[in-house]
């Protein structure tokens, strides 16, 4: 996998890198200029003693002599930093005066000429001033050499003086680049925050106001994608709504007619067949409802679920109307023990969760039994509990009953085995847990759904 490239890094590299290269490149001519300046400053001073010595050269008939007064030699030694050497070479290439062998310059013969050059003497870098004076028998060469400490110091001073501001500029520029880049990339960070903060169901356009010109196309593309996604979700939702309508209306018609048929048949028998049709119709209705609920609730479903404040107490309150008559038909004492318990969730899915739990409880509790719905809050949790005094579920089966279409071995009651699977998935999508417990009385089943409390 390619490592993600960082704009910040990239921009910094591209700005600071060339800047450093530029500084280095511009320092090269500076260095040579500095070397020249350092030499220029001292070269004249070196030439003077050479000229002075040349003035002491005397010519006899057949030889050349030089007598440098001791005071003049002392003057050459007065320098405290550099060591100074000198040498006078006669026409016969012999040393007439001086204290060292100084490498020869490349000077033309027969004319007076002077030269300044750098060379090495006794292992030290030296600067040499040389004067060549033509004499009858040949040239006399005067050389004065000086070690280069002063020059190096001056060079150093010049370089430090010139480079320090350049380096300061480079460092300051790098810091400014860093902040500038950070500042320029801030709109991207804001954009990221805006998208991160969204709830999964919010597919509205990203505002992108304040986004720089270069980022606008990206915002635009994201918004287009969001719009397409929303369309797809809407289509899916429409499909489910349509499927619901298409399924439920004929089922309602079927139920109505079966019921009418039952009433008609009440007068002349044949009611067992009708009871069977009626039972199957009701199962089909129930199943259609459950499947549609699952389509909305299952984790793979991209349909957004609402997250609004829900008081479980009120949720149960609203369902009482539908469930009490059913409990009366089955001769079950359906009771309530309701206290405020607030959570965040999708009221409709929560109602389905409750419906499936109540349905299970009413189906599995024998006639004359008791079912109690309880809501309460405790230590940051909002609880929904449904307790019955039916046969309960053996501990060994308590995991498996949440599987779709799983039915307890030996069960004869109706129910398609989807109820608890739906409860489980709705609870999952609310980050709630479902526990199957044995009530304090020791028999029956207590289903406890624990939501996190919303205050």
């Amino acid at each position, binding site marked *: 996998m390619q490592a993600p490239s960082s704009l910040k890094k990239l921009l910094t590299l591209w700005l600071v890198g060339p800047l450093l290269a530029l500084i280095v490149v511009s320092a090269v001519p500076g260095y040579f200029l500095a070397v020249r300046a350092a030499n220029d400053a001292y070269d004249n001073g070196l030439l003077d003693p050479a000229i002075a010595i040349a003035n002491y050269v005397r010519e006899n008939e057949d030889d050349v002599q030089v007598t440098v007064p001791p005071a003049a030699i002392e003057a050459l030694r007065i320098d405290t930093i550099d060591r100074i050497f000198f040498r006078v070479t006669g026409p016969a290439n012999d040393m007439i005066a001086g204290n060292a062998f100084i490498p020869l310059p490349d000077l033309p013969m027969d004319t007076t000429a002077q030269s300044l050059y750098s060379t090495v003497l006794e292992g030290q870098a030296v600067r040499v001033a040389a004067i060549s004076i033509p004499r009858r028998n040949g040239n006399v060469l005067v050389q004065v050499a000086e070690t280069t400490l002063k020059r190096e110091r001056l060079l150093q001073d010049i370089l430090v003086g010139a480079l320090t501001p350049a380096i300061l500029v480079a460092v300051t520029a790098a810091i400014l680049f860093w902040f500038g880049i950070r500042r320029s990339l801030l709109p991207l960070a804001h954009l990221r925050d805006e998208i991160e903060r969204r709830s999964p169901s919010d597919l509205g356009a990203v505002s992108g106001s304040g986004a720089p010109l270069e980022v606008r196309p990206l915002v635009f593309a994201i918004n287009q994608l969001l719009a397409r996604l929303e369309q797809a979700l809407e289509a899916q939702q429409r499909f*489910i*709504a349509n499927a*619901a*309508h298409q399924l*439920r*209306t*004929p*089922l*309602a*018609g*079927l*139920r*109505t*007619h079966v*019921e*009418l048929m039952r*009433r008609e048949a009440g007068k002349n028998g044949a009611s067992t067949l009708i009871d069977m049709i009626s039972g199957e119709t*009701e199962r089909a*209705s129930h199943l*259609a409802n459950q499947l*549609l*609920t699952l389509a*909305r609730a299952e984790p793979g479903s991209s349909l957004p679920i*609402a997250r609004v404040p829900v008081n479980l107490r009120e949720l149960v*309150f609203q369902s*009482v*109307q539908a469930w*009490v*008559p059913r409990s*009366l038909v089955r001769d079950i*004492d*359906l*009771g*309530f*023990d*309701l206290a405020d318990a607030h959570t965040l969730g*999708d*009221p*409709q899915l929560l109602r389905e969760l409750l419906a499936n739990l109540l349905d299970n409880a009413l189906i599995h509790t024998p006639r004359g039994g008791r079912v*109690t719905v309880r809501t309460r809050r405790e230590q940051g949790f909002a609880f929904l509990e449904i307790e019955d005094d039916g046969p309960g579920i053996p501990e060994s089966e308590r995991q498996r009953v949440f599987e779709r279409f799983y039915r307890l071995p030996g069960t004869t009651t109706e129910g398609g085995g989807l109820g608890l699977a739906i409860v489980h998935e709705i609870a999952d999508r609310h980050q709630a847990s479902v526990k199957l417990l044995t009530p304090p009385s020791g028999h029956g089943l207590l289903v406890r759904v624990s939501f996190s409390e919303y205050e």
Partner: protein
Amino acid sequence: MRQVVGVVISTPDFSGGKIMRVLLVEDDKALADGLSRTLRGSGYAVDHASNGELALKAAGEENFDLIVLDIGLPGISGFEVLEQLRKNRHLGSILMLTARDSEADRVKGLDLGADDYISKPFSLPEFEARVRALIRRSQAVHTPVLSFGRLKLHTVAKRAQIDEEDIDLTPREWSVLEYLLMHAGQVISKDQMLQALCSWDSSLTHNTIEVYVSRIRSKLEKAEISIRTVRGFGYMVEDPDAGAQ
């Protein structure tokens, strides 16, 4: 396509002599047929409209005590019909039939002025109970006498009779009984009763309601009306007219 199927076979007593008119707005033929048979069986005069336009036309021409309105209609949706009906000052009750899941749809329907809703696929007794409750409510407006099996309530005189025989009720007992009977077939919470009755009797509490209900129970023994206690919640009067067919 409007068909009038308004032949009344038997009229339950509680209608006070007047035949109640119901407009059924449903596009599914089989369901519409089943429901109109059921409603006719209950003694109502039933008109059927298979779409929103016909429904509005019918409601414009005649007065209906109840309109059973499907939301998923072809053409003008049930919501628009609902809105239009209330705009036209339709006074009768409206029962919404919905095949949709959406919570928003239900809330929207009730906000637009529906009195109640029932989700498809409903059971027939459930449908009949809702219809009865709505009819009674719209009836109470113009009928002084309401019947519940053998019990009659004279709403103006505030008298109750079993088989023409007066029962002795205190004013408070009367109002509790009237409230319960007006909501027969529905589960009523004690809070709901307190809220409805407290406006003129601030001394009511959960406990006093229990006392009144137990007194009313013993006074109604002969009427065979059972007031069931819903544990931890309230009461439910089983509708004596349910399953009368």
